[in-house]
């Protein structure tokens, strides 16, 4: 029924209860079902009782239907949205520590500028770059810097948000935002 040849990368956005053990429940499910997870990032939302998980998963339609349903089945999962075929923006961030001998510094700086990155740390022999972008852009930077000698990378998972005014949190987040605004005004 399912064929790995037709797998492609999907970006899932999950809203989950922000309490102990929820990440473990998600991780157990992924491990138990053998899903292919490329990346995962987790943080609190505007409503501190809710966390958002953004996940890159590989699968075909069949696999993804099961993945989404299985996540839904976890009681602590409030909402699951597959953003892949919706208009959305996604970003990754990477730190790259690259050899920067004096002769190469100008070239590395230029690459950093072209990719709208920043140098966040410098030593006599290295630069540490911070680049943000879609995964294609990150791959491109990495490839360009490879000849200089990349010593270490630290790469985040994908973050994604739907375009337009829709929010997947809708009520919860808006309500909270309004409440906190009112409070701010009152103060």
């Amino acid at each position, binding site marked *: *029924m399912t064929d790995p040849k037709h797998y492609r990368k999907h970006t899932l956005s999950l809203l*989950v*209860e922000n309490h*102990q*053990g929820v990440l*473990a*429940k998600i991780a*157990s*499910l992924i491990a*138990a079902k053998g899903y292919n997870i490329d990346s995962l990032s987790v943080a609190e939302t505007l409503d501190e009782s809710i966390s958002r998980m953004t996940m890159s998963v590989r699968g075909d339609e*069949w696999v993804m*239907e*099961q993945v989404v*349903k*299985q996540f*839904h*089945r*976890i*009681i*602590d*999962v*409030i*909402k699951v949205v597959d953003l892949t075929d919706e208009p959305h923006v996604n970003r990754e961030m990477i730190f790259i520590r690259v050899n920067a001998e004096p002769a190469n510094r100008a070239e590395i700086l230029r690459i950093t500028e072209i990719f709208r990155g920043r140098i966040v740390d410098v030593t006599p022999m290295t630069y540490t770059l911070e680049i943000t972008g879609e995964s294609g852009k990150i791959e491109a930077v990495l490839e360009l810097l490879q000849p200089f000698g990349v010593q270490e990378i630290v790469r985040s998972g994908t973050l994604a948000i739907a375009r337009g005014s829709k929010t997947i949190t809708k009520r919860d987040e808006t309500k909270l935002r309004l409440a906190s605004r009112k409070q701010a005004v009152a103060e």
Partner: protein
Amino acid sequence: MRLTGSEIFMKSLQAEGVHTVFGHPGGAILHGYDVMLDFPLRHILCRHEQVAIHAVEGYYKASGKTGTAIVTSGPGATNTVTGLTDALMDSMAIVVFTGQVPTAVMGCDAFQEADVVGTTRTCTKHNFLALKTEDLPRIVKEAYYIARSGRPGPVLVDLPKDIIMGRAEFKGYPEEVSIRGYNPSVNGHPGQIRKAAELIASAQRPVIYGGGGIIHADASAEFTELVNITQIPTTLTLMGLGGLDTSHPLWLGMLGMHGTYAANMCMVNTDLMIAIGPRFDDRVTGKLSEFGKNAKIIHVDIDPTSIRKNVHVDVPIVGDVKRVLIQLNAELRKIKRDWRSDLEEWYGQIAEWQRAHPLRYHQTAEGAIKPQYAIEELFRVTEEHDPIVSTGVGQHQMWAAQYYRSHNPRRWITSGGLGTMGFGFPAALGAQAAFPDKLVIDIDGDGSFQMTMQDLITCAQYDLPVKIFIMNNRYLGMVRQWQELFYGRRYSQVDLEVQPDFVKLAEACGCVGLRAERSGDVKPIIEKAISTPGPVVVDVVCEREENCFPMIPAGSAIKDIIDHGEPIPEKLFQGWR
């Protein structure tokens, strides 16, 4: 009112309507057991926590009421894992409370500490770790709600010692529950229901294939109505047995690995499967690539993950089986069709399969007892009592499914998904606790029974008059059958010739022990067992190497079903040759 956590816990159980719990005390849960003395709670002390959990499953399955168990931390909790997994696979609504070491030492390898929430994460529908005493009423409320709603399942609540000993204001047991990530769909989508009705009306060779969902939803009346309206031949899975009266003229018998030839052939030749609350287990589908190749499939299930998990479905309907059937039956009643005459050819074909391949065995007069005969005789003698029947796992379980033809739902309790040997007797114990005056029978195997038999003493202590019939072939029969058929009769670790004297064992545990050795003994011994008060163990000494047929070998297509006495195809041989 400031109360201790244990008092809040007990008051919550009371408010939840819990009258009977099964369990075993220990260090971390001591305070709870102390407070329990002041509450009118009936506690059945099982001698092993696994037994307590299976008993709770039996209690739930027989009564439909969520079962409750209380055990201690560490080994008490880890002993529940098999039962929890069994309950998850077979959708049993149970709530298990486990003691835990104080929160201050959690993670420090304290005495009798185990990471219970971590261990049971994948074998519960949901689990909780209570971290504040004041949260207890909400957690208990949510635990019972989650266990019994949607697709039922086991829920575990871990109770650290300091949380149950601590005090908090008790503001009463919550009346309502709201969990934002959990809203099971109940009603079926009307558009999908219409589509299903249209498909049903135009099918030429339809078959209704019902599963455990019918029992869990208490929908056997609606299911029977579906069969009566459409006049479609009907089969049930192992878990669905009782969903349709076995005396119904359209009853095909169980389907699957050891189902009837006719039921399985219907699945192969059908053009429309109407699947009501099953989950397309591999013991039913056989080889997936061959399953339902020429059929459209309608699948009704409360659990969305069951749909399209294993097989392609044309009309998925997510919803409670009872509610969906009410909707579907209403839709079908509008259709003007002479249901029977359209299916005449199909009926003829099925009758032919039934005539050529019935379930059968040959019992010689005064010969060694055939287990099928013993079970069929047990059925004939006890049918009028409408008993609750549980089983262990193995050959006897399949024979019981074939020959103990229960008429009503919640009368058949067996471990289907996990196939847990040792399940039958504890489940009977639990069912008997739910219905003290009803006849409860455990049809067991000698291998299965030996896994949990120490709790015979529990039956004696609480006067639970379970009648246990051990189909004793002194073998792990099903494993032996596979070794005979697929491994060239190389019997490896299946001989149970050395075993306890079950009659003496029963007596040692305060029960009555009986034995049947020749076929002529069977009927009188059954009658004696049924009329003897209190728990009775009957050692039915059976023919040793009887095989269970029909059989669809694991991984084979349904059409390759092997009926009684047919040779095993060479390609299935898995041995050394």
